[in-house]
């Protein structure tokens, strides 16, 4: 009986609470603020913000809001293969453009 209770409470721990997601949301807002701030400084900073902070924000949404943190390896592999495929196409296009 006590074992059953222990199991169910352990299961409850698997689900994150409200606090985790609210913290992630605050971080996302701060990163958005940084992104806007960088774009006000100069064009170069804006592009660096785009290349660093934007993937970071997307990663946080994927990892926490979309529960990837709590999923097994299969979903992560599916997404990494997709992103890798896009990256290959991106690299192919720009390798063509660069040597034109």
């Amino acid at each position, binding site marked *: 009986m006590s074992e059953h209770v222990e199991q169910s409470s352990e299961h409850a721990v698997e689900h994150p609470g409200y606090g985790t997601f609210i913290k992630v949301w605050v971080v996302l807002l701060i990163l958005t603020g940084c992104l806007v701030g960088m*774009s006000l400084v100069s*064009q170069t900073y804006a592009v660096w913000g785009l290349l660093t902070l934007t993937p970071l924000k997307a990663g946080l*949404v*994927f990892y926490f809001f979309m529960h990837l943190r709590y999923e097994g390896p299969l*979903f992560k592999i599916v997404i990494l293969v997709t*992103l890798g495929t896009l990256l290959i196409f991106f690299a192919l296009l*720009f390798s063509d453009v660069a040597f034109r």
Partner: protein
Amino acid sequence: MTGHIHRDDFGSRLGMWLFLVTEMVLFGGLFIAYSYMRYRYPAEFHHGGSELNVTLGVINTVVLLTSSLTVVLAIVAVQRAEKRRAMAFLGTTLVLGLTFLVIKSFEWGAKFHHGLYPNSPHLATLPPGEQVFFGLYFTMTGLHGLHVIAGLSVLGVMLWWVATDRIRQDHYIHLENGGLYWHLVDVIWIFLLPLFYLAA
């Protein structure tokens, strides 16, 4: 009695993720097109980007990020059997999604007012690079807007199902998958903000 009902929540989520990666490839193709065109027409993209309203773009980002939060909080509420709270969170998401669309329509309306809309006579007089910029702007934000409308429709059904107990503590996979779709719509906007409003 309920023993014979077959349920595979993992399979459902996997199916949803496979659909979502096709969406990522769809928008990914457009992002690659944007990168090349921006590389080819840097000055025109800069000029085009300066005509967009940064304030509205940033407000819409905050609106969508918050709506993503309320969806994920609705799932936590359902897991805890807090039905009223789950409905309140989902209702907030719907209001925020509609707010996004209203702000977007004001933004597009202002562009239309200035003669900037697909295939407009004024657009035809602009340099080719700016035509490409506004072509990509209307295509990408328009396609994203359609996804917002689709996501709102799905989440509207989810709210109804939570209200009628079809989604409940022991069965909420539909809400999880609806939420995944909404988050992807949010992620796409996370990329659209800097591409068009901040770093162009």
